[in-house]
């Protein structure tokens, strides 16, 4: 069964944020917000927090220590070879490899963490209420069945805050 949604379309982020603030003040629950680019204000307004940066730090720390330990094990403990009279623990020359592999570790681990946390995978069906949010419009979505007051009041509010368009639509997952 598909639910009917009320969709507000905005031209600019300030108008969107003004509407979001007003809607929250009225106690109306926002279903989802789609923006052309990431907006931290939206994350805050939706009451979401992220510990993603801390996770990235941990990956970096683990990656750097792991790579250094690996280099030390291979070139000092397991298979020491004399390269042009260098000490086997040629620490400065380990650094470059460590930096590069740490970046790789953080990038891949962050990608997988994000995908797992947001439940995104290749071929997943998605809901895109208004295509224009992938271009230059800010789109806010409400669940009509959850509205306590009438839809008219919400429509008026959105238009008053600068929505260029407000309409109702049944949302279907797409592939």
């Amino acid at each position, binding site marked *: 069964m598909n639910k009917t949604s009320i969709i507000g379309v905005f031209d600019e982020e300030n108008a969107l944020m003004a509407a979001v603030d007003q809607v929250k003040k009225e106690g109306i629950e926002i279903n989802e917000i789609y923006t052309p680019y990431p907006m931290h*204000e939206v994350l805050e307004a939706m009451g979401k927090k992220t510990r993603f940066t801390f996770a990235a730090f941990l990956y970096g720390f683990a990656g750097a220590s792991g790579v250094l330990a690996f280099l030390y094990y291979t070139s000092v403990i397991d298979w020491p070879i004399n390269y*042009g009279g260098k000490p086997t623990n040629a620490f*400065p020359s380990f*650094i470059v490899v460590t930096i590069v592999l740490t970046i790789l570790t953080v990038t891949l681990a962050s990608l997988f963490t994000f995908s797992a946390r947001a439940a995104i995978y290749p071929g997943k069906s998605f809901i895109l209420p208004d295509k224009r949010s992938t271009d230059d419009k800010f789109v806010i979505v409400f669940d009509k069945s959850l509205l306590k007051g009438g839809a008219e009041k919400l429509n008026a509010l959105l238009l008053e805050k600068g929505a260029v368009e407000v309409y109702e639509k049944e949302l279907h997952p797409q592939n």
Partner: protein
Amino acid sequence: MDTRITFSKRFQYAAIALIILGGAALAYGFITQPDRAWANLLLNNYYFLSLAIGASFFLALQHISQSGWSSMFKRVPEAMMAFVPYAGVIMLLLYFGMHSIYHWSHEEALASDAIIQHKAPYLNIPFFFIRMILFFMAWIVMTRLLRKASLNEDKTGGMINFERSELLSKIHIFLLAITFSFATFDWIMSIDVHWFSTIFSLRNFVAAFYHGTAVIALIVILLHQKGYFPALNKSHLLDFSRYIFMLSIVWGYFTFSQFMLIWYANIPEETSYFAERWHSGFKVIFYVNFFINWFLPFTLMLSQVTNKNIHVVKALAIVLLAGQYIDLYEQIFPTILHAPVFGLIEIGTFAGFTGLFVFVFGKALASADLIPKNHPYLQESLHHHLH
């Protein structure tokens, strides 16, 4: 909004007292140990010049990126730039100390050394000073023009001066890339005349930008604690911290790559530079340099708990003041004096130059409104908010 700062008489007298102290320390040095005194003069003059040049680059960067957040602080780097002409005059004094600092300036060295002969068309005393004058002329003209555009903006407003500042900044950055590179080659790298490193100028330029930015942050924080810049908030601090964080990484990257390649290749004529710096007490300085200028800022500025904390940023900026000194000490002192020395001459000279810098800076800062009046991004800066 009248935000003119007063440079109090008491402060001026303190600065002048420091200058006299520095003059006395230098005079004592010239009588007892002329080589050491010249090394100190070069180090301290280059130190404060690098802060002024770093500040001018910071300002130019804000202009060309049309940054909003920093526009209310732009008078601070502008006032720091006022030190450039003074540094120029002091740098010209090196004429009398060439033989103490630069081995290549000796006639007998030139006569017997093939490498110095090979470099002689570039490294000779007349051309050295012609270049020095050209560099300082370029910097003085550009910093004056940047300052003038900013002051005109206060008077007339409008977009003309804003656009002019942007154009001047582009020219300034282009000129700096060439002039400051050759300046560091001339003044610092040629002390070790047999040694060269192509990343040297870039590394020293980043060091200047890095520590110039740290000093801007420090001055802004100090003024804020005195009641100026009431609009300074956590978001501004975060931006300053990000600059310091980013620059500590770039500094570490360049410094380490200069060291690592030479260490790894291990070719005698290159390695001799670091061999000299690993003898006697200098090895400690080598590690302390990395610790202060890279490790400490990198770890402290990672977390938003510490990099939005005004006390942490302030303390770090003060430590970085020492960081630039240690960095230059490691570059200048080993070749000239062969053993680490630190005493009254060093402390006195540094105090004297600090006095001069503070005096020039204070005068320049007090000569205009602390917060620019008609900058188009002023409101954005006053209400800067990051998420």
